[in-house]
């Protein structure tokens, strides 16, 4: 298989004096993989994702997507953040159709009759998606703040998939959800991944979550404070993970992340704790 994403010797610093966040990340991701990037809060996972998206540029090294550098985000890489994923001024349906709408019509052509015809088509299409992600028809005309957190993230996923991106980037997409909802969402994203064969790069600080979804887990951690995070572990997984394998894998990841100094390490015990405590 060819590499869809090549991350080469990627380094990122912030501020002056420069504070290193990432130091020399190397990673290749093939088409169709489901990669989870794991690491403690503040280790630079979101930064890595922003560099892949192209909303920021690295201080050293490069990210190639399909062999090209990207200077800004575009529709080939879909994105689901933890918060603010949906446009609050649009209904659920209009949020889902936003992608095709904005790509096919500019500020002026969207005044033409053709636009309204096409929008009807798109809305029908979006309805299908809505059903697939487990929302009801009645939810279509609601505004995002009338939905629960889990429902919002479902819509955000549908919104991202509607443009049929080759890569789906998710940043702690389920971290604000309660454990039950979170498990449902994990199942859903696995399902969608299998159906659409989209390459998924999923960032999380929750080991259990990573192990229960990914075909490959990459752990980022700092070796010492003077440097940024590096790839400390990169392992392939057979999915679904066997229950009796879990403790061993968790121990392995925990070993790499080292320190049990901070409360963050509690999550490596395999317990599913509410996020408020972890963050």
């Amino acid at each position, binding site marked *: 298989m060819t590499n869809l994403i090549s991350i080469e010797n990627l380094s990122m610093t912030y501020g002056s004096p420069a504070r290193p966040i990432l130091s020399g990340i190397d990673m290749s991701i093939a088409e169709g993989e489901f990669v989870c990037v794991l690491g403690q809060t503040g280790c630079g996972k979101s930064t890595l994702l922003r560099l892949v998206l192209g909303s920021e540029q690295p201080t050293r090294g490069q990210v190639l997507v399909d062999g090209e550098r990207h200077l*800004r*985000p575009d529709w080939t*890489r879909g994105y689901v953040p933890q918060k*603010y994923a949906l*446009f609050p001024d649009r209904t659920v349906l209009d949020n889902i159709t936003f992608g095709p709408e904005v*790509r096919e019509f500019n*500020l002026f052509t969207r005044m033409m009759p053709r636009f309204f015809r096409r929008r009807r088509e798109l809305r029908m299409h979006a309805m299908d998606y809505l059903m697939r992600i487990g929302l009801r028809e009645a939810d279509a005309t609601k505004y995002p*703040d009338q939905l629960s957190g889990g429902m919002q993230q479902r819509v955000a996923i549908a919104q*991202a998939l509607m*443009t049929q991106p080759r890569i789906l980037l998710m940043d702690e997409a389920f971290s604000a959800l309660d454990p039950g909802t979170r498990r449902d969402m994990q199942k859903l994203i696995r399902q969608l991944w299998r159906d659409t064969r989209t390459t998924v790069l999923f960032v999380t600080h929750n080991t259990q979550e990573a192990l229960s979804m990914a075909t490959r887990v990459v752990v980022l951690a700092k070796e010492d404070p003077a440097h940024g995070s590096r790839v400390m572990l990169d392992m392939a997984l057979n999915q679904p993970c066997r229950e009796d394998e879990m403790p061993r894998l968790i121990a392995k990841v925990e070993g790499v992340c080292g320190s049990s100094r901070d409360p963050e390490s509690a999550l490596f015990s395999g317990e599913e704790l509410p996020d408020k405590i972890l963050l």
Partner: protein
Amino acid sequence: MTSAFSLIHSKPGRTFDTALSWLLFAAGVGIYLYVAQARHAENPEERVTPTVTQMVNGFTDAALKPAEDDEATLPENASVFRRFPASMLWKDTKATSRRFFYSMLLLIPAVLLGLHMGLFPYVRVFFLRFILFFDKIVALSLLPILFIAFGIDELSKVMLIVIGVTPTIILDTFNLARGIPPEQVTKAFTLGAGDFDVAYRVVLKQLMPNVLNSIRLNLKAVMLFLFAGEMIASTDGLAYRIALLRRHMGMEIIIPYVLWVALLLFLVDLSMRVINRKLHPWFREA
């Protein structure tokens, strides 16, 4: 055992609530009437505190009698609907409304500038420092310069509003635009939007209710500068009339005029609030 009375947790009943909210109005009117009556008893020629009858007469004259310059043109028995449009009150209101409308139009480029400053770094760098400086200029202190530079016609009054109000609106919109979570912008790009799609279809649309609220808050400032301009250099308008009548101690018209202006401003504000709610049903007031 009953718990102690708490001010914060008290719930006035509906009738009591209404009564209480009108109490200050009633007190204001009552005190005025008492003072006016007392002063008139002392001196029937008294002009500072006109009686209600005088004010009603004054206001009806202003609203229904033809303005001075075209006195003869209306027949004696013309209907109210023919007489009001020829009246002094209508002419003044029209002149002031026109200027008010122009100043509102001027706020549109201000909003757009603020939006672009918030989103595009080059625009921000180019304008921000200058506008921060501009914002600190006391607009009224520029009045003489404006009259010298632009003459005493409409342009100088409009410029006064530009200098007085637009920096606030620009900076407000700028801050609102910067407050949009970066995730939203990134998200829009990943869905295929371009720079201007993000600016107008994502950010501006989300900001609009807040921008309208900020304009509502600044209505007073707009009126302040408008009135300052009209009082000092104008030949029509509500403020011109008030300033003119001051010379004749025409309190029986000034007081109704002041209330009339307050009523108009209240109506503008109210309609903006209603429009805001109708246009943005998704908006939750913070």
